[in-house]
């Protein structure tokens, strides 16, 4: 975890961001408790007000402290929650300069090895706690790229693992916080709970956003989006299976793919599209967010 000394203004900022008032809102999300997804769009004014409040806190503090980058408590890239997987070693910022993809205070951590997750260790075999546990809505951030999964992922020491980063929004409420465009780009795929954006600039990264509320999605395939533009509301939507709505925890699954070329010993290049760890880029983006970056975007 980062132990760098924080300037007083930033300590104040962190106090605001991690204030207890945020952690008192731990009621189960209405969509989960009712067993049905809220299909009506969340009223725009309420959402904007919440998001604006989050961002103005960051902007004011950053402005007052006049620092280039704010810091916040976070584990180092590649450090996974103990027992959650073999992890990875490659540390690159694969998406420098991106806009942090949620328009609120946010918490990057595991959905499986944290309270409410299937593998969160408790004394009970069946009760793994609540996803709204305050531990899930607090710093430090935890990397969960390469968390144990069966999906092929050569970046992971084990050869398989989670292909993105899970991020919880400010509070344990579905359909309230906007997912926003990481980069200027074009919407290249929209599903019932997914949006993909391809960056306009080389190397044309592919960003995928999962688990947004279907009714809230603001974009369609072919739309041009600008960095920070609203895409849809972070939700617990896992699509409909055999006619039945499926749910996950309230979070954004954010993944990045790039075209890569590996130079072999004979000098030839072996190229492929690949998932890359987004955590280092997200830490950097969040530090800039706390300093005001992307705060005024979202048309």
């Amino acid at each position: 975890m980062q132990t760098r000394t924080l300037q007083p203004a930033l300590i104040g900022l962190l106090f605001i961001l991690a204030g207890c008032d945020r952690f008192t809102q731990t009621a189960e999300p209405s969509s989960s408790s009712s067993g049905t997804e809220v299909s009506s769009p969340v009223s725009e004014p309420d959402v904007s007000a919440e998001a604006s409040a989050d961002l103005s806190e960051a902007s004011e503090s950053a402005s007052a402290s006049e620092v280039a980058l704010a810091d916040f408590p976070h584990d180092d890239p590649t450090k996974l929650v103990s027992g959650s997987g073999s992890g990875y070693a490659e540390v690159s910022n694969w998406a420098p300069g991106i806009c942090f993809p949620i328009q609120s205070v946010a918490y990057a951590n595991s959905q499986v090895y944290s309270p409410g997750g299937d593998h969160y260790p408790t004394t009970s075999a069946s009760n793994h706690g609540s996803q709204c546990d305050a531990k899930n809505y607090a710093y430090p951030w935890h990397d969960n790229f390469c968390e144990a999964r069966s999906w092929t992922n050569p970046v992971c020491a084990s050869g398989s693992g989670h292909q993105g980063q899970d991020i919880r929004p400010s509070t344990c409420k579905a359909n309230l916080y906007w997912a926003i465009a990481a980069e200027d780009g074009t919407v290249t795929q929209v599903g019932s709970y997914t949006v993909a954006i391809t960056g306009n600039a080389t190397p044309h990264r592919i960003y995928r956003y999962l688990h947004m509320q279907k009714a809230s999605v603001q974009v369609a395939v072919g739309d041009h989006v600008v960095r920070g533009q609203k895409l849809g509301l972070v939700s617990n939507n896992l699509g409909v299976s055999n006619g039945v709505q499926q749910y996950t925890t309230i979070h954004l699954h954010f993944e990045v793919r790039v075209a890569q070329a590996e130079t072999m010993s004979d000098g030839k290049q072996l190229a492929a599209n690949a998932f890359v760890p987004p955590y280092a880029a997200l830490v950097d983006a969040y530090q800039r967010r706390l300093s005001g970056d992307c705060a005024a975007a979202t048309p």
Partner: protein
Amino acid sequence: MAAIMAAMTGAADAQALQGNNGPPAVLQRRPLPPAPVQWQAVLDRLARVRASRQGPGVVARLVKSELDKTELPVLLPREGVLDTAKARLMSFGDAYALDLPQPKGVHITAYGNRTFLPAPAGAVSRRPITRLKDVAEDIRITQMEDGWTATFTRYGMVYSLDVSCDDAAAPECKTDGFLKTVITQFDDVGLGARAQAEAERFRANANQTGSLVDQLTKSFRDLTKGG
């Protein structure tokens, strides 16, 4: 905002994101120069598919302005098996995406790109490969959270084919079988104005080179005759 992106993308190859008290140095990777298109292979393939297909193919359904600004060959499915009625091409010049919505919430998205980032050792070579009948390239298939993706190199470019499903239980996403069908269907190729111009330049150069070789060969024969 764009300035921030540009400045950071152009930053040094390696820089410390954190301070000096422990965190690992975070690298930034500059894109490699655009990969050259293997135009001879493209022209060969184009000649084969034009000879075998009925009609103009899916390329006729793409928006011309998007196709025309695309520098690289656009991989396309043959008509008949996949639903191509709503095919939509989005071009970035040196890259593109092709959206191909299918019935029942199944999505096919194809990506092509000629700009690569340098990858660490093993990032590509460690990935398992699949060989498919009638497909020349090594295919790398990966399951995703909501479907499957395949990536391969053709004509020197990197291509991906994604199959994702609104319903995770949909047969198209339960296994990689449908994705493999999709890969075998994508054996057509489309060229827009920029790509065609490049291909023509290649052909002209090739003809010029061929002509030069012919002339040299003739001169050599003439010389040896005289000796």
